[in-house]
């Protein structure tokens, strides 16, 4: 059996005394698209925070390519090829779109020590500019917005800035927290098409955390269902979609679907 890109085993996250995540295990193969769905407060963001190094898990392990990186810093995870797009996008509003993108590349070369970080950034400047052009080709809209402060762009544009910023770190795994949050359906559709293309053509694995189960099932062939800090279900999206529990809880109007059968 091959070593998975991401292997999470028995992860526990606590805030003070409250248990947010109670022994969650999931795997994601190289180049795979996987969704994680669940209601508000199920622990989805806690899981992503623990994987990305923002939160220290109380127990359990996180492995990348089989190597234990459980308590690695967020910067180390970025350098290992795991980039996260946080909930609500969190672009840097007072910086221009292009400055946002360049910081994504800076984060990848940055170490604790600022002087060597600057040197590495200067040395790799040529490669970084090539990557910037690459991101502008993938998301042409960003080229138009390059001089505009990211805070003065629309929600969908901010999501593009956030995706572009993550891509500037040249990730192998893109973890996205709530792609659709606060965005118009048509914008979400475009972003989903883009992510599928990114995955199929460039092999970037995607871990999509979503409340919108319909979107998650459409985009990802495999999914996990998280409830109250524990995994309830997992499997191919096609199967989960037919599961009556999933239909009532996440796809809405369980009755109508039942009648239609």
């Amino acid at each position, binding site marked *: 059996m091959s070593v998975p890109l991401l292997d999470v085993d028995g992860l526990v996250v606590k805030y003070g005394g409250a248990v947010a995540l109670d022994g969650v295990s999931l795997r994601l193969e190289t180049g795979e698209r996987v969704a994680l769905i669940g209601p508000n407060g199920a622990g989805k963001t806690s899981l992503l925070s623990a994987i990305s190094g923002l939160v220290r898990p109380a127990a359990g392990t996180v492995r990348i390519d089989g190597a234990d990186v459980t308590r690695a*810093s967020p910067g180390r995870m*970025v350098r290992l090829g795991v980039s996260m797009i946080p909930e609500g996008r969190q672009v840097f509003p007072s910086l221009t779109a292009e400055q946002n993108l360049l910081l994504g590349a800076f984060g990848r070369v940055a170490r*604790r020590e600022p002087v060597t970080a600057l040197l590495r950034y200067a040395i790799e400047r040529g490669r970084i500019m090539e990557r910037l052009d690459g991101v502008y080709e993938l998301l042409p809209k960003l080229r138009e917005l390059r001089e505009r402060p990211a805070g003065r762009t629309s929600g969908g544009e901010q999501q593009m800035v956030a995706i572009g910023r993550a891509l500037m770190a040249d990730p192998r795994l893109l973890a996205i927290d709530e792609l659709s949050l606060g965005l118009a359906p048509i914008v979400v559709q475009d972003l989903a098409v883009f992510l599928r293309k990114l995955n199929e053509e460039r092999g970037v694995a995607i871990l999509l955390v979503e409340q919108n189960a319909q979107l998650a099932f459409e985009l990802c062939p495999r999914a996990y269902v998280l409830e109250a800090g524990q995994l309830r279900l997992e499997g191919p999206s096609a199967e989960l979609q037919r599961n009556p529990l999933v239909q009532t809880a996440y796809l809405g109007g369980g009755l109508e679907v039942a009648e239609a059968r």
Partner: protein
Amino acid sequence: MTAFLQYIVTGISDGAAYGLVGIGLVVVFRTTNALNFAQGVYAVVAGMTTSVLVLHMPLVLAAVLAIAIVTTIGGLMGLITIGIRGDTTPLTSLIVTLGLTLIAESCELLIFGDGPHSYAPIANHAWDVGGVLVQPQYVLLLGVTLVVTLGLNLLFRKTIVGNALVAASDSLRAARLVGIDTVTFGVVAFGLAAFLGALGGVLLTPLMPVAYDSDLNIAVNGFAAAAFGGLVSVPGALLGGIVLGMAENLVVGYVNPQYELTIALVIMLALIGWRARHEVSTA
């Protein structure tokens, strides 16, 4: 009229130094969300250190050395304040900087004694401009402050390090996720703040001698200057400093030196209140 102009000129020069201290507060606040109570200490220690070093070497060398020492101390204080893991809350940080200020005052007493310290300005003569006496030190102070303000503006807008500092202030969480080490950049911000405070101190001490307990007065002035710009604006802090400096000198000249700080702060409060109101109504 001549007296009035004299107060204004002296006020602009004093105010430039308050502005530098205030800009230091802004830099730290924007990057780490912490209020640095120790901001006045940097100016005092730099002024005192220069006053001792200048006995053994040329003034410029003494000043540069003092600023370098204080900048290093400031970076270390930053590391203590935000913690190795960088998860100290802003309130805890404030208390830590308060503690560090008290420790610094004790150290100053031990090393420099309890008397006021000063040294000669860069030139002792003064230009007579229509009856108003302008000291070269005033011009130097204002000139350096303007250059530094412009330089900081360029740093924040045009360089990746400046962008990273702005990013940390925009969203600490996102900055960490991108891979920016926010502890490192917090230390850089504190170092920069100490540099600015030290610069203000070194330039102001010949005009206004410093003692171990001067830091509170300087910090309050710097804070009022920074508050004028809503704690986030570098040019706003400079402008605030200059308004405050002028107000103080006018109070000393026309009212009573005893009420210098009190009345100046009341004026600042009124201005800040007016500004806040104005912003709300136009928003």
